[in-house]
């Protein structure tokens, strides 16, 4: 159900800590993972720490697995490539770094409401107001971007179904054109609805 690391309701310490801290922590861990990532104890230690964080946030192994699965093929490929062509150590640290980055980002989105994340961004972009940036608009743009993922994937499914039903075969051009047209129509409709909900400025 929760693809794409969507918020998973809960009451753990991670759920309760402020979104800004979690975002800050995420950036910190990402930086450490990249900078100190070549040192095997650090890279594996960080990964272990993250797994502990997952467990302490009450996130089940299943959900954890769902975060890893999409990148698994790539991670195995990279590990194999490094092991065969270069150093075995690289075959450990590079995949560990990738997993760390994916898992830390997923952990933040799993334990933080989208609204709270966007509020942090709105606050962070506040000082840019003087440069003509409208924080609320930045937030809204982010929200719409997130909103569009299920919308467009739903459209893609419908277009694919229609195509299979009519021709029984998959053709990339016959897929892309109606998808783009549908997406633009959908965007118009969402814009109109947003105006009706009073967010037109």
């Amino acid at each position, binding site marked *: 159900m929760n693809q794409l690391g969507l918020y998973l309701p809960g009451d753990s310490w991670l759920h309760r800590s402020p979104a800004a801290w979690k975002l800050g922590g995420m950036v910190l861990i990402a930086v450490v993972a990249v900078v100190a990532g070549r040192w095997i104890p650090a890279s594996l230690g960080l990964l272990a720490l993250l797994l502990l964080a997952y467990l302490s946030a009450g996130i089940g192994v299943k959900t954890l697995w769902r975060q890893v699965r999409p990148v698994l093929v790539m991670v195995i490929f990279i590990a194999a490539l490094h092991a065969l062509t270069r150093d075995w150590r690289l075959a450990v640290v590079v995949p560990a770094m990738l997993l760390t980055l994916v898992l830390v980002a997923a952990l933040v989105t799993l334990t933080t409401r989208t*609204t709270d994340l966007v509020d942090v961004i709105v606050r962070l972009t506040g000082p840019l107001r003087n440069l003509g940036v409208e924080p609320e608009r930045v937030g809204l743009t982010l929200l719409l971007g997130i909103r569009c993922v299920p919308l467009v994937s739903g459209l893609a499914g419908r277009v694919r179904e229609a195509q299979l039903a009519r021709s029984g075969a998959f053709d990339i051009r016959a897929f892309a054109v109606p998808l783009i047209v549908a997406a633009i129509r959908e965007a118009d409709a969402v814009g*109109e*609805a947003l105006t009706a*909900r009073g967010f*037109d400025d």
Partner: protein
Amino acid sequence: MTDGTMSDISATEPTAITAPSSPPVPISVERVSHVFDTGTPRAHQVLYDIDLVLNERRVGIIGHNGSGKSTLIRMLDGLIQPTSGHISVAGYDTVREAKEVRRSTGFIFTDPDHQIIMPTVREDVAFSLRRSGLTKAALDAKVDETLARFGLSESAEKPAHLLSGGQKQLLALAAVLITEPTLLLADEPTTLLDIRNTRMFASLIADLPQSIVMATHHLSLLTGFDRVVVFDEGRVVADGTPTEAITYYKRLMDTELALRNPTTDSREPSRERT
């Protein structure tokens, strides 16, 4: 008022539980015409010189696809500007004072996916109040109350796009009503719903204190309405009580079908009914 009585069709009649109904929001449509894609070869007129003064609490708009219903109802919210003519809602001009109009108006679209913006149910309802200036505690309390009122408390943390069609439309309604509009506009709100959800939707809106203008193909929804207007090819062709208007509309369909297909058995068109 909705718990446990979801299948109760008799609830389409306004009941005594209803909050003291506010006076109807006055709407006036003056000589309104609309042409889409003006000045291009694709230009086509959808509304011709519409004059309407609406002063009822429940107004229905019916008519075929392409008759101009949706265009008119969007104009009442300032979402489409008339090519000529003027519209005022509660005394505000829908073009010059669109913001004021929208502040006191809620809009329900046919496809709730278009108006649900936030990832979860709770967040979407709260989104409506994003600019209300309420404190977090007050906002949370109001959201909780609204979710409970629409039977959505259980789904509060669910991803909104995974709800069923009926629940999505409920969510859309909840997210609109939390802003306490005085006028509710609805463009075929039940077209994508099944019969059960359509009835549930009907019973929910019947109890609302708001003024409602609704375009629909579900003629049964109009029971208890004060006035129904029939559109055909961009013109008002009938205007009266639900019974009068619906009778006219059905006769219109029968005549059209008979003209199109003179050999058809006269019983044939009745299949199109309701």
